[in-house]
């Protein structure tokens, strides 16, 4: 009989460095460190500590799960790049799990997933709602009041604020991000997956040069 699949999930999409190791259906080790910066220097040792706490070696892993955001662009890329390197090195799949799915994991009923985004905005996506919303980034005070529906709860780091705006309830996330990432990856890894890619929801800030090039007279 094959042994329980072992999945390592991790996430650095916000001000944290987090990992969780799933063996079968149980989380056997987990780490979550609040961290404003320095995730790139910390992540790999944190993963190694998580594995060694459970007595698991890299070569024992069946799959990698990685949080793909939305969130801090640099933070997401740190984990996604590490996950791609690990997957290539270990010859196992890396599964990208977005943080809407992660926050919705174990949600009780219709939910609006709300993650904190810069400048008074939130990343939003519906989960089991009548209305299909997002994923989208929008200012919290512009969220239409008619998105509120019976039994709706708001979940995520911006959940309390959006819930107050809509006059609905706020429900805390059921699982820490890395735990949810590992659990969701465990349901997907046996089916071929695209390589993990960051979920940005916003194009790169870049504007074409303002100065028009000079008129070339001979071409006219």
């Amino acid at each position, binding site marked *: 009989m094959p042994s329980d699949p072992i999945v390592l999930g991790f996430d650095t999409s916000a001000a944290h460095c987090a990992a969780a190791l799933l063996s079968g259906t149980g989380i056997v080790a987990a780490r979550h460190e609040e961290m404003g910066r320095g995730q*790139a*220097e*910390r*992540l*790999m*040792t944190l*993963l*190694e500590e998580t594995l060694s706490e459970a007595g698991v070696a*890299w070569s024992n892993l069946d799959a990698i799960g990685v949080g793909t955001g939305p969130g801090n*662009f*640099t933070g997401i*890329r*740190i*984990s*996604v*790049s*590490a*996950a*791609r*390197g*690990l*997957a*290539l*090195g*270990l010859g196992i799949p890396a599964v990208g799990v977005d943080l809407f799915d992660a926050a919705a994991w174990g949600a009780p009923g219709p939910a609006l997933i709300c993650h904190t985004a810069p400048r008074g905005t939130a990343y939003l996506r519906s989960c089991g709602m009548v209305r299909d919303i997002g994923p989208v980034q929008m200012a919290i005070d512009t969220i239409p009041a008619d998105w509120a529906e019976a039994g709706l709860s708001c979940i995520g780091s911006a959940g309390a604020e959006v819930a107050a705006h809509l006059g609905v309830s706020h429900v805390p996330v059921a699982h820490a991000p890395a735990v949810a990432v590992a659990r969701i990856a465990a349901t997907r890894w046996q089916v071929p997956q695209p*390589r993990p*890619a*960051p979920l*940005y929801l916003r194009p*790169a*800030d*870049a*504007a*074409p*040069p303002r*100065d028009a*090039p*000079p*008129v*070339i*007279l*001979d*071409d*006219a």
Partner: protein
Amino acid sequence: MASVTHILGIESSCDDTAAAVLRIHDGRASVLSSVVEGQSGLHAAFGGVVPEIAARAHAEKIDLCVEEALAQADLPLSQIDAIAVTAGPGLIGGVLSGVMCAKGLAAATGKPLIGVNHLAGHALTPRLTDGLAYPYLMLLVSGGHCQLLIVQSHDRFTRLGGTIDDAPGEAFDKTARLLGLPQPGGPSVEAEAKAGDPKRFTFPRPLMDRPGCDMSFSGLKTAVLRARDQIVAEKAGLTTQDRADLCAGFQAAVTDVLRGKTARALEQYLAVNPEAPAIAVAGGVAANRSIRAGLETIASDYGVAFTAPPLRLCTDNAAMIAYAGWERWQAAQVDDMTLAARPRWPLDNRAPALVGSGKKGAKS
């Protein structure tokens, strides 16, 4: 160490995602594969490299480049003995993707991780291609860098001078933009300059009146802008001849500055009495024929051998990172999983910081 060693190199510090496999057999290095995925199409509309766009592309390409480099080298990852990666200086988002992918590969395979200075990669390339002996003089001229260095060993560099503002490649790009020529500006300005009269416009030779080897190129770009605006004010546009003359005048000024400052550097270099005096150039700007010819002339004037690696190893690539990583590995300089990505990382810590070097992107 076995007599055959394979090093994987990874580079992502600007707008090229690159991976390479280097084979070292009895101390001799050969490039088994060198994959470079450029991004110029992604940045073309913006007239320069946009850091966030570059970072996004690197994060989704770096592992694919590694796979391609292994495939072209016809080697499985298990045959790789060490993993070398650019850890700076450069655009931090891209450097981070390379470093994290390399850490993932190193953790997974248990192979040593070696963080490499991107500038050291360029500076050591003449050893990979021509087996140059230390110490040699290096002129590094690219889109992001411009320095004159005496290369004493794989980790000992004396910086004689460098640009205090724009790199020459940047000046070429900006000039191209001012004149409505396509990016990257180096090749398009050079092509245009062929039909131009370099004497029609007299552009400044910044800092040539000052001692030392420091250079400045941002004023040159402004001078081109002024000359352009004056013509546009007169005839409401530029003729192709005007444009060619502006390009030729600009290129002549850059060539003169590089030649003049390199001559000064050669004098300082020769004062250390190298056994086999040699100067090497690296960086994309070294591909410019007028500049290269000017440098060759200076080298022969001083009786110093001139080396320019082939263009594919002169511009950003990962083979040079693998090579520099191998030299570090030989000296037992390996890194652990806390290896940091560094936006700035001067090769010569003793030299004073170049003025203005803190203001822009990929500077050292």
